[in-house]
């Protein structure tokens, strides 16, 4: 479902990605770990079609990231560092606007159901600027759920979430996988990585430095792998 072959991204002389190759089949979650500046966000932005690769190519459900970006955008939902929410609109209005941009009529029942799914049924009419950062992230997650995407790209989506919000996101990811979706989840939390992943990749200096299947991987083993990889490339 998600394929990347030799993705390179240069910003001037700086190489953010130096040839990333990965594949995430339908029904799987790939978690990406890596220290700050290792290229995780650039990778997500490339897969989301927000930036174009300098070299290499990628496909989402068979659609090229560059030539087929309109099709890719219909299939993908992104929750990144920024929420893409308008502070002066309510949570419900933000979701209705996203629905309109996706070419769908804003169905109040669907929107309220998505907000209820992230635990915001009582706060749908509150302006986003009055919500805490964790609740804003939940609104962004509700917007992603509402899209019913086939591919989910989460960049630090767990950060700022309380345990209840984290549990709801984990539950959603498990249901999403079961429904045949594919996801790339970027996180700094080894525990979260193991909780949702089928495979874990460690990105260091713009390359996939290590990859492991979830299997019986423990948090300690993952920590050793992570530290070993990042220390070696530091």
């Amino acid at each position: 479902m998600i394929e990347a072959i030799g993705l390179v991204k240069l910003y001037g002389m700086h190489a953010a990605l130096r040839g990333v190759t990965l594949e995430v089949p339908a029904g799987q979650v790939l978690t990406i770990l890596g220290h700050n500046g290792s290229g995780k966000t650039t990778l997500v932005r490339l897969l989301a079609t927000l930036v174009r690769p300098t070299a290499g190519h990628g496909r989402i459900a068979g659609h090229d990231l560059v030539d087929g970006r309109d099709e890719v955008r219909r299939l993908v939902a992104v929750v990144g560092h920024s929420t893409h929410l308008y502070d002066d609109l309510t949570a419900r209005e933000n979701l209705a606007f996203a629905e309109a941009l996706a070419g769908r009529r804003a169905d109040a029942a669907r929107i309220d159901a998505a907000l209820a799914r992230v635990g915001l049924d009582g706060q749908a009419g509150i302006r986003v600027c009055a919500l805490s950062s964790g609740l804003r992230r939940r609104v962004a997650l509700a917007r992603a759920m509402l899209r019913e995407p086939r591919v989910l790209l989460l960049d630090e989506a767990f950060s700022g979430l309380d345990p209840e919000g984290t549990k709801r996101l984990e539950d959603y990811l498990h249901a999403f996988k079961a429904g045949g979706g594919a996801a790339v989840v970027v996180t700094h939390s080894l525990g979260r990585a193991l909780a949702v992943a089928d495979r874990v990749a460690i990105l260091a200096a713009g390359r996939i430095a290590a990859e492991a299947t979830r299997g019986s991987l423990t948090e300690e083993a993952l920590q050793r792998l992570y530290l070993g990889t990042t220390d070696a490339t530091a």
Partner: protein
Amino acid sequence: MSPFLRTAWAVFRKDIAVERRAKEGANALGFFALLLLFLFYFALGPDGDRIRAALPGLFWLAFILAGVLGLGRAFALEQENDCLDGLILAPADKGAIYLGKLAGTTALMLGMEVAFITATGIFYNLDIWAAVPRLLLVALAGTVGFAAVGTLFAAMTAHLRAREVLLPVLLLPLAVPVLLAAVKLTDLALAGEGWGPAWPWWQLLLGFDVVFLVAGLLTFEFVLEA
């Protein structure tokens, strides 16, 4: 309603709702308009003929500055929380997003223009009311042309650090034909001239409106994705 118009309508409604609630732009514009009226009164004195002669320039000076402020703000809003990325990622026709942003800016500018024309008539005690319908037509046509090219440049400079400086530098020279025609048509409307002498200026203004609008619709996607 077609999906294209539905998207444009959604963007327009969103921009108006955000502006109505935030009120920052309206407050700044209101204060600026009052200041302009006071300054021109002190510069020109109470002579009604002198004021009337300066009115086309006064009107369009206020409208241009309101427009530059409004355009900058329309895309500054999209920079908060990286909403511009959200627009890029939306599986929507980017031309429709352009049309919605343009309509939002035009509506906000027109609101300010109606208030400014009214305030000018009252504050300077001028009998301009018979010319108001034609003034509003000129304001609409001039504002559409100005906002059409302005929306494109505001999107182009949205990511830049020096956007507040660059937007007027890029926009104003290109908007000169629209502004010249609009000032001349305002003058003719205030003078109560017939439609005959105004026709060539209308042709120029509407011609540029169409050119800027079509160029914006066709190129906004490339500007947004650049």
